[in-house]
């Protein structure tokens, strides 16, 4: 999550009791942000079909507050579902840039995480981690809806630990296939 505007950051930490104030605000912000992770509909291929099945009536992502927004301007999470080709890579980078902070990326499926079965293909980028910083890797080909929901819950927990003062350590979480 991005740092707060510079002028506030410096003053609030030195302010006696500032820490408590920030923690209070963190609590509220993280509670709101983790329970309303709007995700950018960014279905590339087969994992997108599984993502739709997860979002539909049987597995239902709405109960987690996860809504699919078509425009990056209103999205917090970018779920990259599918293999990433060299021709598509610059657009993924641009879409990631155009998402407002705080933003996260969940790489869904073996192809998005590490290139999947296409090791010897000329036009496939071996993992979206090379284009955008990824928070959660969900393996599987395609990962079952339960795996995806597990990955999303892990992402919610990570958002709860964040602070508006700055991002803590961010090594990615991996959810098994």
């Amino acid at each position, binding site marked *: 999550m991005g740092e707060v505007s510079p002028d506030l950051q410096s003053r609030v930490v030195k302010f006696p009791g500032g820490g408590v104030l920030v923690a209070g605000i963190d609590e509220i912000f993280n509670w709101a942000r983790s329970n309303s992770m709007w995700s950018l509909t960014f279905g590339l291929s087969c994992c997108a079909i599984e993502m739709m099945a997860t979002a539909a009536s049987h597995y239902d992502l709405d109960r987690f507050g996860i809504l699919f927004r078509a425009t990056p301007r209103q999205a917090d999470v970018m779920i990259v579902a599918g293999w990433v080709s060299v021709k598509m890579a610059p657009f993924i980078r641009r879409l990631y840039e*155009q998402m407002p*902070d705080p933003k996260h990326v969940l790489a869904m499926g073996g192809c998005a995480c590490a290139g999947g079965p296409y090791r010897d293909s000329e036009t496939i980028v071996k993992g979206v981690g090379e284009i955008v910083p990824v928070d959660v890797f969900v393996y599987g080909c395609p990962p079952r809806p339960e795996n995806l929901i597990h990955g999303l819950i892990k992402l919610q927990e990570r958002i709860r630990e964040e602070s*508006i003062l700055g991002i803590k350590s961010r090594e990615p979480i991996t959810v098994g296939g």
Partner: protein
Amino acid sequence: MLIALIVFVTVGVVFMGATFLLSRLLRPHRPNPVKLQSYECGPEPFGDAWRQMNLHYYVFAILFVLFDVEAAFLFPVALALGRLGWFAFFEVLVFVGLLLIGWYYAKKVGGMEWER
């Protein structure tokens, strides 16, 4: 009576001011050139939107606003119709009737159809 007015105005201003100030302070602020570009489904946007638009959009927009505001007026009347009695009911009918004439004219002139 004056006090109520003053309280009302100050609460309004304070509430508005506070939310804007707080959000300006607490929201992350990390602009970068690509983020400020216009979003066009991924690729580089072609040209810009400052072009001569077709005038028909204006007709559509005005018609929409007109009937939207009409609907907005009907809500309070619908809620309070029980207490207002028959006179108000006929008054609303006249109001809606006038707008219907306008709607009919627009339909006849072809304002509703998008044709080149």
